[in-house]
């Protein structure tokens, strides 16, 4: 579904990714692990067209998408849910969700997608007229995820959805991700610092360190890996 080959990315003149390659199959749930500053956000933003790779190529459904503008990529069905949310603070929850269906191809299924989002996060239904900036951190994250779902994406790119949230909210959101993957058949690429949770719900994982892919494998294997245990799980 998504194939990345030898991508080099520079950020503010500094190299952030060193010939990163990875491949994700249809309906997979893959996570990218790594410490702060490893280049996880950079990788996702590069896929979504927010940053341009200096070298290398990115294919989505066998179609080269490197060099495309982000608005083109969005209409292909590849939705990024960014770390900071990038919500529209002065717009209501409902309008924020509607913006997720902005690409012309997505405008047909608004009703169905909206119902699905409210089913996934019932709390948003109660607050749909409220301005986004008045929501709590967890609710904002839900709006961000919901907005990403509104265009009925083929693939979701999630950038640290659990960052700074209370454990109980994290659980809700991760549960929702599993449901999206299972029920909607949406491929998911997730980056996480919270490695234990991420490996629990995903099928495969990549470990990114200092802008390079350090290791990869099935989630269960990685969970048992010595390097990961020692450096990230603190065991």
């Amino acid at each position: 579904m998504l194939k990345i080959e030898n991508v080099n990315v520079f950020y503010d003149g500094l190299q952030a990714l060193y010939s990163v390659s990875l491949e994700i199959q249809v309906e997979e749930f893959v996570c990218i692990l790594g410490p702060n500053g490893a280049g996880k956000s950079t990788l996702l933003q590069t896929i979504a067209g927010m940053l341009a790779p200096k070298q290398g190529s990115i294919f989505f459904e066998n179609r080269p998408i490197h060099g495309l503008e982000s608005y083109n990529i969005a209409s292909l069905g590849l939705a990024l849910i960014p770390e900071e949310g990038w919500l529209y603070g002065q717009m209501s929850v409902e309008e924020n969700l509607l913006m997720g269906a902005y690409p012309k191809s997505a405008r047909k299924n608004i009703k169905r997608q909206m119902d699905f989002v409210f089913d996934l996060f019932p709390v948003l239904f109660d607050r749909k007229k409220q301005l986004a900036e008045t929501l709590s951190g967890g609710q904002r994250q839900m709006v961000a995820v919901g907005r990403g779902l509104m265009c009925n994406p083929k693939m979701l790119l999630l950038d640290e959805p659990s960052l700074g949230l209370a454990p109980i909210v994290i659980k809700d959101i991760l549960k929702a991700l599993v449901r999206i993957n299972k029920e909607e058949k949406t491929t998911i690429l997730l980056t996480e610092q919270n490695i234990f949770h991420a490996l629990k719900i995903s099928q495969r994982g990549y470990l990114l360190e200092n802008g390079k892919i350090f290791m990869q494998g099935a989630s269960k294997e990685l969970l048992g890996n010595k390097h990961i245990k020692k450096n990230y799980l603190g065991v």
Partner: protein
Amino acid sequence: MLLELIIRGITIGLVYALMGVGLALLNGVMRIINFAHGEFYMIGGYMAYYASTMLGFQFYFSVPTAMIITFILGAVVEKLLLSPIHTQEMEKPMDYALIMTFGLLLFFRQLAIKVFGPFRHKPADYITSDVYILGVKISGNEVLAGAVSAILVIGLAIFIKKTWRGRGWRATTQSRQGAKINGVDIGKESWIACGVACALAGAAGALVAPIFTLSPTIGGSPLVKSYEVMAIGGLGSIAGSLVAGLMLGITETLGAFYISSAYKDAIGFLMMGFFLLFRPQGLFGQK
């Protein structure tokens, strides 16, 4: 007298608001300051003048003609001169836009002197009869200008609120990156928004042309007023611009009458300075 002053303040305030919303829109979508905004007002006025004298159009044709021409001009200016702000990584986009649009201001003004000639012109009155509002005699032109301005401002507000494109513009204002990943083509929306903003300025110029008459340098005052409206109403807020325009129009008319006519223009500036320093989000704007 007070009633007359307030009614006059409202009519002029609506035109101020029309100038201000264009700027608010531009600032919202493109994140730039446009110093040439008043020049589109001037060009709009001249276009209406030529449409009415050379083609014999009535106002309901000549004003839209002016709007279409200023729309095209604004879009072209955005495409040729302002788009590098989005397409190239620019270190100081604001400074670039300030100096660029200032150059445009000088350019349009000087060009207008050469093309339109320096003499004052006036299109034929749009409405020749006078109108009595609560016993106050107001010329038909002024009533028309106020009413059409109000319609355009409210129309823009509805457009921004209800349509996909308008929602996309608002989204761009509030989070550029969010809008990008949601599929808003900011490059394209920028020139459309710039064109619309310029068309609104052009409409204002066309509407007041028979009232204030035309000369190549008339762009200065509405430019100033539109910035005052935008600063008072809050950057990027349409409702704020409407209220601020009315507020400015009424305060100015009253201040000029009761305090000092020589300091009329200072009133708006002092209001703007006060808001910028002590309430930078304006009346309704976000921080």
